[in-house]
């Protein structure tokens, strides 16, 4: 980074008309040593990053941009948008973009849609650019933890794009099926695993030590991410071989593992679930009207009266905040993320067990699937007591087991951005008709808690988020 100031421009070097040269010269002489450079110590020129000392900032930027891509302020990012489109939360406010999603539509021209696409797309580009730039700055890029970190986040950025967006366009290119995100993610995760493994194997240097993540921390994150995208590719393509690969990756990740995306109030990386689902002025999203309101715990109740799964916590509000910003729908505010610095998991070991369970279901082994679900619950119970202890579940046939799995994934991964890819995948296997979840949808008008009926969660135009209108207009290959 630039230490003090940047001088971007001296007196213009070339003129348009030769006849004016004399006058310019006279003016320049009269002005003495007038230097027209602009100075702003806050600005960083691109070339300033071509130095090894810039690597920590570059890698931190990769991580930060990924976090912004998840859940930026502009309309809540893909995590909030995905929660609206699925049944994790229901809109209770006035923002058009969120209301539309909650009502089952996704439009590319909403103001909120623009950043919602742009930020994760940028996160992917920044990560890929960082791979190139850092690789050029270090001596052995194929065993460097910072290169591996950039690859890891490239993988996750691609995964997020694939999870959420209806279509794909990369680096200003033309349309591609959205599964290319998963394919690129798989490629990046694979490369991250290779580079991190090389770094760990090279004991003679400090290559395993990264500026933000060390190689040993990268490996499980990369395996978990690859398991996620392989699960998507397997489910969407009904590819049993890919399910096997997903299970192999999942097995590399212990159940107690969590790869968190950290947020902080000391900067622009804020967990906006706080703003969109917890803080009182906004009141844009409510747990009311979702299956999770039935499954979870109402923390407004005395502890002794609480029922439901401790992994889904919300609060039925009263008084001035009994209603959302729409002044209609009851406001049940989520209590999972109650600060702007709360971390959001990118991947969990428990999800790996559920990937293994789903793979078993796809192969028809529902007993194994139920066992894996109970493995997750047992793990959770190691830190729970009293009425919060999760009961073991059982099923009598594969359909019941599918419902158990779908419910378990919903609860375990609530508000973590996993619901939308789950529903996209389950639309193929086991099929939309077997997904039992109901949600409040109202295509137009203000929501009415008395009359709003629950419909299938698949009652949407497309179970995905549209690529922004800005991208479509700006990218000549999409016109």
């Amino acid at each position, binding site marked *: *980074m630039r230490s003090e100031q940047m001088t*971007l*421009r001296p*007196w*213009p070097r*070339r003129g*348009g*008309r030769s006849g004016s040269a004399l*006058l310019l010269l006279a003016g320049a002489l*009269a*002005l003495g040593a007038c230097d*027209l*450079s*602009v*100075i*702003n110590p*806050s*600005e*960083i020129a*691109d070339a300033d*990053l071509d130095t090894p000392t810039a690597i*920590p*900032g*570059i890698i*931190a*930027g990769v*991580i*930060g941009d990924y976090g912004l891509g998840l859940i930026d302020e502009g309309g809540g990012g893909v995590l909030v948008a995905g929660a609206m489109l699925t049944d994790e939360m229901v809109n209770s406010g006035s923002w*058009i973009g969120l209301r539309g999603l909650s009502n089952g539509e996704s439009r590319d021209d909403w103001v909120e849609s623009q950043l919602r*696409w742009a*930020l994760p*797309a*940028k996160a992917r*580009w*920044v990560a890929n*650019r960082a791979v190139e730039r850092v690789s050029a700055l270090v001596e052995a890029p194929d065993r460097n933890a910072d290169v591996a970190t950039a690859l890891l986040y490239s993988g996750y950025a691609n995964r997020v794009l694939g999870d959420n967006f209806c279509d794909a366009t*990369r680096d*200003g*290119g033309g349309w591609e099926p959205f599964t290319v995100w998963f394919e690129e993610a798989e490629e990046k995760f694979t490369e991250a695993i290779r580079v991190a493994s090389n770094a760990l194997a090279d004991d003679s240097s400090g290559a395993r030590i990264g500026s933000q993540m060390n190689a040993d921390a990268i490996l499980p994150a990369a395996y978990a991410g690859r398991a996620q995208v392989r699960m998507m590719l397997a489910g969407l393509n009904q590819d049993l071989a890919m399910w096997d690969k997903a299970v192999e990756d999942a097995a590399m990740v212990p159940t107690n593992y969590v790869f968190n995306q*950290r947020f*902080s*109030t*000391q*900067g*622009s990386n804020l967990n906006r679930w706080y703003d969109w689902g917890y803080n*009182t*002025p906004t009141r844009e999203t409510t747990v009311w009207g979702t299956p999770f309101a039935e499954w979870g715990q109402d923390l407004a109740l005395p502890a002794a009266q609480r029922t439901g799964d401790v992994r889904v916590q919300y609060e039925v509000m009263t008084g*001035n*905040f009994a209603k959302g*910003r729409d*002044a209609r729908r009851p406001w049940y505010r989520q209590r999972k993320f109650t600060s702007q610095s709360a971390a959001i998991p990118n991947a969990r070991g428990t999800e790996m067990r559920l990937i293994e369970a789903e793979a078993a279901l796809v192969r028809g082994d529902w007993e194994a699937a139920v066992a894996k679900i109970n493995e997750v619950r047992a793990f959770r119970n190691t830190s729970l007591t009293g009425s919060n202890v999760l009961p073991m579940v059982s099923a009598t046939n594969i359909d019941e087991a599918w419902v158990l799995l779908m419910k378990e994934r919903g609860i375990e991964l609530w508000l973590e951005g996993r619901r939308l890819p789950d529903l996209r995948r389950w639309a193929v296997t086991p099929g939309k008709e077997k997904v039992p979840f109901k949600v409040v949808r109202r295509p*137009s*008008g*203000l929501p009415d808690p008395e009359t709003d009926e629950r419909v299938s969660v698949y009652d949407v135009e497309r179970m995905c988020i549209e690529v*922004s209108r*800005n*991208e479509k*207009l700006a990218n000549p290959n*999409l*016109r």
Partner: protein
Amino acid sequence: MFSFRRLSLLPLLVIGAAPAAAQASKGVTETLVSDLAFKEPNSFLSLPARLDVHNVGLSSALTMLQQRSGAPLAYSPSLLPRDRQVSCSCATVSVASALDRILAGTDFQYAEVGNQIIIEPKADEHHSVAASPAAVTVAMSTSAVGNGGGGWTVSPLRGVRQLAGTITGLVVDGRTQQPIAGAQVVVVGTTRGGVTNAAGRYLIPGVPAGTHTVQVQMLGYTTAEQTVTLADGSTAHANFELTERAISLDAVIVTGTAQGSARREIGTAIATISSAELESAPVTSVSEALQSRVAGMTIMPSGGNAGQGSRIVLRGPTSLTGSIEPIIYVDGVRIDNSKINGIDVDATTTGLDDINPEDIERIEIVKGASAATLYGTEAGAGVIQIFTKQGARDAQRWSLRSEYGISHVPREWWDVSIYSDWFYENYTRLGKQQKHTIGVSGSLDGFRYNLSGTYNNQNGVLPNSRNEWGSFRANMTFAPGDNFSLLVNTGYTRRDWQVPEVGNNSNGLIYNALRGGPRGQNRPVEQLSQREYLMSSGRFTAGLSATYTPVHNFVHRLTVGADVVNQDNISYLPFGSDLTTADGSINNYRRQNLQTNLDYSASYKTNLTPTLTSNTAFGIQAQHRAHLRSRATGSRFAIPGMKTVRSAANKGAWEDREWVKTAGVFLEEQFGFHNLFFLTLGARWDGHSAFGREAGYAFYPKTDVSYVVSEHSFWPKDIGTLRLRSAFGMAGKQPGAFDAEMTWAATSVLEGVPAVTTGNLGNPDLGPEVTQEFEIGFDAAFLKDRIGIEYTHYRSDTKDALYAVRYPASNGFINTQLSNVGHVRNRGHELALTAVVMDIPRRFHWEARFTGMLNSNKVISLGGGPPITSGGWSQWIREGYPVSAFFEDRYILVNGEPVLASEYYTIRDEHGNPVLDHNGEPVRVEGWDYIGPAFPTRTLNVSNKFTVGRNLTISALVDFKGGHYISSSTSRWLNYEGARVLDGEPLYDPNDPKTEKFKPGNPTGKQCIDPKDKIWEITCQTDWSINRGNHIHPADKWTLREVSLAYRVPRVWARRMGASSATIRLAGRNIWRHQKYIGLEAEATYATSNARGAQSYFDTPLPRMFVGSVSLTF
């Protein structure tokens, strides 16, 4: 910039009444004698002439000598030989020498009498001039006034033969009622005459008995006549109210060169607003003073709270992305006009309003690129030049003005919701204001000064609306030598400003109250005044301008100026006062802008041939801007009463600093032919920090022509005045400081870990957008100057407009990148018409003024770039449409039934299915969603001024803005399906029929209570996410902007108060309005800082205001 001081002609004629006259009219004589002031002999004659003219008319030469030397000249223009051409390279000589040269070979002579220099025809018999300052009477002898052959005599008192009677009187400006000094008064058909003194009085003794026509002539005014009957030994009174000439071709305009130019010499239409206009207008700010006075200038207020700023656009928006407001100079010092508050409230002040209107001598509005070329980069949207008052040349004079007023928004102006009455009664108030100004002006041995101080306190019509400011101005002029003068202008303004929560704000007072009643929409209204937005600012502006004439014909001028603005803005939420953050919070934004400019220019004049003059000017200009900003935030106070960031538990900080420079040189050559035809060629070259490294420097050429047809010999004298003019020129608008460079931004992630992220993509070819403008027009006066017309047609094109091209986010940079690819076009007509509708001398005078503008604005090209949103919701920049025009779906009537435009205009195949594009979107008829422009396309200002008797003046100004649209969030939030009264409404009583409208489930918006048509019926039954376009409304508005009544207290009464003059004024502003707009205020667009925004969001209506004031001079 050159600060040309408009001279006030305040000569004091030394008059002593003849003994007989004194006896006959003692009172008059005493009054006149008390006005006497004495100067050292020849003090004006010894002033440096600073004159350099070549082959100009004798009248013009004298005018310029008067203006440039400051010496008050008294002469009768009509007596001067019209065909006399004179030259005088008199830059370094005294006024006396200059007069010697100018009058050489003519039949005229001069003499300094009292406090002025009399220029008179040499008389055959009475060639004697009083050289002594002792009491003299100026008398005149003429054989035929106006034929050029008459003779004048200024005779010493002792030389006057006492005849039958005396004629005396007062000459004042008919519009301002201010005395006119130096006017020539003659008794037609006699040899008698006189000149008015500083108090506007004249005295002509020795007039034969009988009926006479008294005629008054003054440069810049129409000639006036009265008939008086005089008996032997008596005194007759004849007072005159002169009307300004419809066209003043010799008024000097500052054009960017060292000495400015007479209006006749330049080919552009430059508007001027005089202090006289401002004094009589009920205005509290410069923004208000500019409103509705100039054709082609549109003022758009941001709201009706005390002190809220405005946006100014001249001749339509010329830029797609950059500022579309003119740059501002005060006495040659470029001032900052940024509209930044930094504390997240949609309200700002305007830098222009830091200038006290009462300190202003005149304002010049350079409307377009054709006239702004010499101002270079940044002047593409025009230039506003403010010239403050300079010291008087005569004795010290004190002035005092006190003003008190009230403001009020009528109940019906709030009437948009069922809660309007409740809101009006509980939350609006009578605004109050007071303003006091004291000033002193005078001169001491070559040093002139003007000092003034003002205190203003204004409380708005809503709680927490307050605008308190004080200003002090000190202007000084030194003339230590014949060839050197120095002007120092300084001003300081301190402002404390407070606004309620307004604009696009979920905690907004009006929004919550009108939408949700006592319970509010977002929170109870009673809680909403707890947050305070307190904004303090200080502005110090100083300029030093030196004029030096070292050698003959070569004038140099150097101006150094600085403008310093310090803002200290606080958004404060006390401990425990708000349910959002129970522990309170504070946001302190501080901003310092130091802007310095250095202008050097020089001009050299010479005669190329006996009929061809040349004026060569060149100059250098440099500007530097240091912009420092910081923000400190804190939340969670420990206990009540804490009010600083230091006392908050959680703290944050942000800071940014930037220094930007620009420099340019210019060259201008002006040729004059017979003082009738002028051709100007010029150019400016600029470099700027913000230009890309490959962009080179900017080149702005200009040319203009002016032809005073009516002064040609072939022009019949009685027809009137006609000047033809035309101009072409270019001026620029710079991009942002770093727009040319690929940059990354520093940020913080992961609990304080430093990081970088993509910022600006960069464009090394980025240069300024250059607006080229062609204008053509004429100035004309007919019917003995009773009708004056100024017409201009302009055509401006910004062909390399900076356009924020959006690149695919999938390529990593999500911010738009400026590129010189756009093309914006403005075409328009401006007309200013003045007319003396009726003139019954001494009884009734009616002047009418009409100014109007038609403007057509269009985005011709975006250089292949996609449309972008600009300005706010539903506003887009698209090819073929006005800048930031409105596009939106909405219900339209088709065969009497409402249909969504998107459905109606969808192109369908033979099966009725929509035809889809490659993105799967339905194809629709081009322009299906276009609603209208965001900027007014037509304006009209009509003012009338009635003068009844001598002392009473009544004036009124009506204006109209129209053709444009505003997105009304007021309409949107109040009139849709969901805007209903909620259960448990506290204002509803089932037993009280009067509260029926508050019954739960009833609509809250006025439009939905009884929808007036089918469009509103369905609008009220649907959500605005579907029919948002139905809440974008025409913003046409008629306003009775100003009404004023001024009474000039008779001088005798004023003297009893110890004053030399006194004026009482009663005035009103925004008295009446007519708008069809669905919302609160068709003129208010809350986002002042958003140049193209036409968005209204429960904005405060511009209040009706009444003020009363008293002005005294001592």
